[in-house]
């Protein structure tokens, strides 16, 4: 019976995420049409003659525009094209299909964001626990204030500053790209080292700006949890402080942190777009900015969809984790 309700929770989530994915696809279809003067047709007119006829056809497919189809028909052919992976052809990387461009760039972004998020999550939560535990001590009380101010720093500005000081002036770190010029992509220590070396600064910029959010959430939740009666009981039983903090406090405070994972990840993804742009890091954030400046609409739409899907998948993994961490979900 427990298992059954857990499955229902998961099934509900799958349904929700599929619905969100459909809504994102529909947004992608509607946005160009809603804009004043129908941006999609205007762009088509502008693109005429400038780009090869094949690309024009690809653009038609991506927008689902075709003069002899009704908007409803256009919508359904757009859905069909998108779901079968026909995202059109990129102008920027002509004549490479959008799906292939994304396929080449997505791993870099997943690596960078995944790497940075795991570090930021772990560090942020540890500092959060410390700051709630030692409340009243000078450092523990100063940390949240410091991180609050730091969370108001623009991601790209931190990235620029790091690039200038550590990369350009001191020459400690590379200032662009994902791996060194003389390195071929193969499974060797040298390649791995070069990749990590190049990811250090971009990842560091993401970590220092996103860590504060995790930290504040953990701290505030933990402070609230520690005021609960069962913590008082544990203290009265004379349990060691460390055990109360870890097993009674932090464990319970972690759950709400996971619930708001979706929004936090959204922020990180947004920040990563700017950071990738600053470091010329060959991920999809960099490609998105390229696409925008080249009016490469098929690529832009494809990247938007892939970003939404990635965030949905990440949230789904967190939901799965959640069912293990919080058995109450399976009981209700």
């Amino acid at each position: 019976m427990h298992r059954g309700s857990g499955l229902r929770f998961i099934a509900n989530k799958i349904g929700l995420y599929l619905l969100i994915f459909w809504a994102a696809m529909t947004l992608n279809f509607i946005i160009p049409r809603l804009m004043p003067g129908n941006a999609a047709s205007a762009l088509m007119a502008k693109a005429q003659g400038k780009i090869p006829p094949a690309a024009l056809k690809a653009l038609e497919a991506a927008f689902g525009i075709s003069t002899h189809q009704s908007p409803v028909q256009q919508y359904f052919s757009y859905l069909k094209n998108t779901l079968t992976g026909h995202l059109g052809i990129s102008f920027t990387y002509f004549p490479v299909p959008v799906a292939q461009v994304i396929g080449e760039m997505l791993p870099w972004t997943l690596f960078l964001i995944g790497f940075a998020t795991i570090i930021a999550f772990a560090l942020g939560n540890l500092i959060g626990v410390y700051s709630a535990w030692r409340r009243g001590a000078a450092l523990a009380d100063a940390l949240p204030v410091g991180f609050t101010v730091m969370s108001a720093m623009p991601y790209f500005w931190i990235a620029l500053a790091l690039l200038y000081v550590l990369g350009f002036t001191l020459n400690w770190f590379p200032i662009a790209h994902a791996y060194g010029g003389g390195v071929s992509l193969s499974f060797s220590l040298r390649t791995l080292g070069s990749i990590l070396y190049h990811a250090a600064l971009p990842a560091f910029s993401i970590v220092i700006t996103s860590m504060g959010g995790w930290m504040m959430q953990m701290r505030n939740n933990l402070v609230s949890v520690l005021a609960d009666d069962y913590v008082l009981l544990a203290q009265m039983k004379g349990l060691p402080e460390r055990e109360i903090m870890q097993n009674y406090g932090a464990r319970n405070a972690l759950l709400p942190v996971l619930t708001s994972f979706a929004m936090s990840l959204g922020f990180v993804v947004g920040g990563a777009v700017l950071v990738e742009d600053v470091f010329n890091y060959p991920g999809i954030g960099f490609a998105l900015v390229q696409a925008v400046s080249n009016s490469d609409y098929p690529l832009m739409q494809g990247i938007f969809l892939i970003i939404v899907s990635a965030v949905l998948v990440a949230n789904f993994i967190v939901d799965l984790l959640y069912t293990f961490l919080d058995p109450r979900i399976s009981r209700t």
Partner: protein
Amino acid sequence: MAKSALAPAATPVAPRAMRRHYVPHLTIKAWVGLSIIALFVIMAVFAPMIAPGNPNAETFLPDMPPSAANPLGTTALGQDVFRQVVWGARNSLLVSVVAGSLATFIAVLIGITAGFLGGWADRVLSFVITLFLVIPGLPLLIVLSSYVPSKGQGVIIFVLAITGWAWGARTLRSQVLSLRERDYVLHARLVGQPWYSIVFAEILPNMASLVVNNLLFAMIGSLLAAAGLDFLGLGNVSAVSWGTMLYWAQNNAALLNGLWWWFIPPGLAITLYGGGLALLNFSLDEITNPRLRKRVVKVHAE
């Protein structure tokens, strides 16, 4: 009174006579935050007196480091950086205040409607809230604004508000759900108060602190998002704002030419102003959530 906004969220607002005497204890953090914000507001309002002249005028020697004539140096185009930072405050503050307020307004509207009506309406609105929460704001912002043909200030503000309201709506909705079940709301229903009276007289005043909290949060969000858009050149690049300053600095390779005085001041201004808002929000949290106040809980033996 504006101060009543700082009353604790969960307790009903005191009767008028008592409320007048309730002055919340502002922490040092709150004062520091308020002072920083006030400083920037003064800077924006009195820009013509603090840094007279057209901020875009290219009348100086280019690439000059800070000096007596140009306290923050000059850009590669021969503009005065100090002048640009001061005048840029106007745009950056305006966008953050207006877009933040608009986003909060939408959040209040949708959050209260969903929480108060419940049932079918709640289910639909909750889905919309989740949708906008899960779709990352900045990529959506980039896609939206790249389709907009003319980049007026109003369009950017509108787009920022559209992408920035969901978090607030979620918090407000759950607060309404809990307030709706309180005895005094039940009482208001039983005596036959109309819905608008219940919403505006019973529920909204008790969420005032949460609304202010969301407003500050949305202002920081809009400030950073607008700066990001400007930096990518998706805003109005001819208007002077902290974000466009960074855009021009980046486009003229200020970094690689060692013009640190061009890209440090605008970023620092964003950080300081945003940090001021964040500090105020931080201390507001402490005021409204007694558990977060200093030394209420003593866990470790001292």
